[in-house]
């Protein structure tokens, strides 16, 4: 026990001494937490639209007005011809090109039927999908309008089902409520995995690990001595992050802090275990960093921070379920936004603990005092 305390003293001194690292560990993440949620706004509101109006009728004018009044679309300009409009899409000046054909009004009145042409830049799937859906529903509304106005017939008397929708847990559809907890997890992840991997390898590279290896310090004491400081740093960073979320974004966890911190400790245990494991396989800091980067980057992209895990194919979901961050991000969002309790998060918490146990056992087995 006393040995552990001395080891801890050494580690803390080393960490606190290096200002440059301390600032990248704590200040850089917090600045990012303040700024980046502002960038993570997926709401589709600025879809730029190029219009080709070949009809120049009151009908076509009204349609265009209706689309621009919806708030989802921004009229970037009129194009003289459809190919010109497509060119605007090609050059990213417009996301959607809409062509109103000649005799739109006349044919609609006479023949009861007319086409509209819409071309959407579909490289960004979501924007295309949602933009197309919005445009279609506006055209549908407009269609109902003109029927009411120009035809004396009453609106169709066929039975109608109406779907009334409610949004729970985030009625204002505030994207930041969703992103801030996840970004905080990413920042804690980078800190924990990378630091614990780098730290041990640093001792290897500078040769000081041999000094420790010749002492009668036990393997697990040494590893504990390496883990506890980063556990503490992780908890500090997480706490500061929660405070930043509260001050800048007004996010107060609905669930209990006890649940959050208990999950955080299990999570840090798993991620520090990963860091240790990577350290046991690396000889230089560069190696451990490239290894850590490999995992962190995949974790970030696949764990549901930016895209929904549910939408992935089954094999990918199976892979993702072995990533500790995917579970912790889920827990964070559930506890912070919905107030979920221990009984609701049993499965992700157990999964995380099991992964942590596995990684740590592997790391301890693989760590040798003799090289």
């Amino acid at each position, binding site marked *: 026990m006393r040995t552990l305390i001395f080891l801890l003293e050494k580690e803390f001194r080393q960490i606190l001494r*290096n200002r*440059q*690292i301390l600032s*990248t*560990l704590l200040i850089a993440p917090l600045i990012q937490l303040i*700024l*980046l949620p*502002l*960038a*993570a*706004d*997926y*709401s*589709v*509101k600025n879809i730029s639209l190029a219009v080709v109006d070949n009809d120049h009728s009151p009908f076509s004018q009204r349609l265009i007005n209706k689309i621009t009044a919806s708030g989802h679309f921004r009229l970037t300009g009129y194009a003289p011809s459809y190919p010109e409009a*497509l060119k605007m899409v090609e050059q990213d000046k417009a996301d959607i090109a809409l062509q109103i054909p000649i005799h739109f009004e006349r044919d*609609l009145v006479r023949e009861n*039927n*007319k*086409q*509209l*042409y819409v071309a*959407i*830049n579909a*490289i960004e*799937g979501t924007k*295309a999908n949602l933009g*197309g859906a919005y445009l279609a*529903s506006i*055209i549908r509304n407009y*269609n109902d309008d003109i*029927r009411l106005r120009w035809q004396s017939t009453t609106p169709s008397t066929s039975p*109608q*089902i109406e*779907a009334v929708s409610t949004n*729970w847990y*985030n*009625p204002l*559809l505030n994207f930041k409520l*969703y992103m801030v907890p996840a970004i905080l997890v990413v920042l804690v992840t*980078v800190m924990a995995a*990378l630091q614990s991997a780098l730290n041990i390898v*640093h001792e290897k590279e500078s040769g000081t690990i041999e000094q420790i290896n010749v002492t009668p310090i036990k393997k697990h004491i040494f590893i504990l001595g390496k883990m506890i400081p980063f556990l503490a740093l992780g908890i500090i960073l997480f706490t500061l992050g929660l405070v930043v979320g509260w001050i800048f974004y007004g996010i107060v966890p609905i669930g209990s802090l006890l649940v959050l911190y208990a999950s955080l400790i299990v999570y840090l245990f798993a991620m520090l275990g990963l860091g240790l494991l990577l350290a046991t396989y690396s000889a*230089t800091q560069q*190696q451990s960093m*490239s290894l850590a*980067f490999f995992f962190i980057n*995949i974790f*970030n*992209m*696949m764990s549901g921070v*930016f*895209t*929904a895990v*549910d*939408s992935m194919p089954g094999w990918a979901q199976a*892979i993702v379920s072995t990533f500790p961050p995917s579970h912790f991000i889920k827990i964070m969002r*559930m506890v912070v936004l919905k107030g*979920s309790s221990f009984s*609701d998060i049993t499965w992700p918490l157990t999964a995380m603990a099991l992964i942590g146990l596995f990684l740590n056992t592997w790391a301890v087995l693989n760590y040798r005092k003799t090289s």
Partner: protein
Amino acid sequence: MRQLITFIRKEFLHVFRDRKSLLMLFGLPIAQIVLFGFALSNEIKNSRIAIVDYSKDATTTRLISKIAASDYFDFQRSLAGADQLQAAFKKGDIKMAVIFPANFGDDLMHTGKATMQVIADASDPNQATTITNYLSQIVTDYNAELAKDAGQPMQINPETQMMYNPELRGAPNFVPGVMALVLMLVCTMMTSVAIVKEKELGTMEILLVSPFKPVYIIIAKLAPNLLISVLNLFIILLLSWLFLDLPVKGSLLLLVTCSILFILTSLSIGLLLSINAQTQQAAMMGSLMGMMLPTMLLTGFLFPIENMPLALQILSNLVPSRWYFIIVKRVMLKGLGITAIWREMLILTSMCVLLFTISLRKFKIRLQ
């Protein structure tokens, strides 16, 4: 000149001797392009949904089977009452619930109108909006079926064409994004340790006392990284062509030229970090913690830049990967030529020159 070649050889030996790092450097892009290309998509499907049916009549049964048949929903279970919803949402079992009130079918038949309730878990606002839209679409289609006999006058039929990506796959957006991300981070990271490592190990002294121009040291340090990155680029292009069905539509030469420009810019960023850092650890943390998330978010492949606050939009102009992402999309996916991207190329060139010049000037030939 001979000096430079010898020095470059030394650096190559260093890099190629370290098998583990090398494996990662090549493994990373391969794993990521394959994983992300197949697994990631912006499309939202298989959303788990629960249904509370107080009516249990022919209409609700038909509507439910229509919802269950849709690709977008994964019909989880029927709940007996609305009081169980809160628990299901809290457990994260379901993303949406549909409630049919009692006498739904009767109301529809007799009063010509019936209301169903849709509750979405809006903790993910994007998913909530999208699946609510999907569900409304299903209901609208159902209504249209009901109204078929009535016959609709003055029908407008929008004909929609999804350009460049008719199946709305995720890969066309993610491949250029991942290319920008991976190239930028790998280059920055590799280079960020280059000079500080020599400082830390003490070998810098030997270099500095030798009759060797400082600029040669820098060039020699960058050469192996440049080669590795270009190899990586070709691997990525080959993989996305073979596996993801995304060939380079425009000129390959143009794309490679722009990529080299981008790689050089990223290398210069790493160089600058390396010159300023005191330890390898600080350099790596700087390049990872400082660069990773901003690159992911401000490149524009995850979130549209025009939605961001003005300050961040301005900030995003400083991120080289943003410009490279535009270039890749235009050349690789749309097949456009140099006239469409000369502005972006010019920006990258000036960034590269600027960063390199600053690094060169800050490179100290004294240790303290």
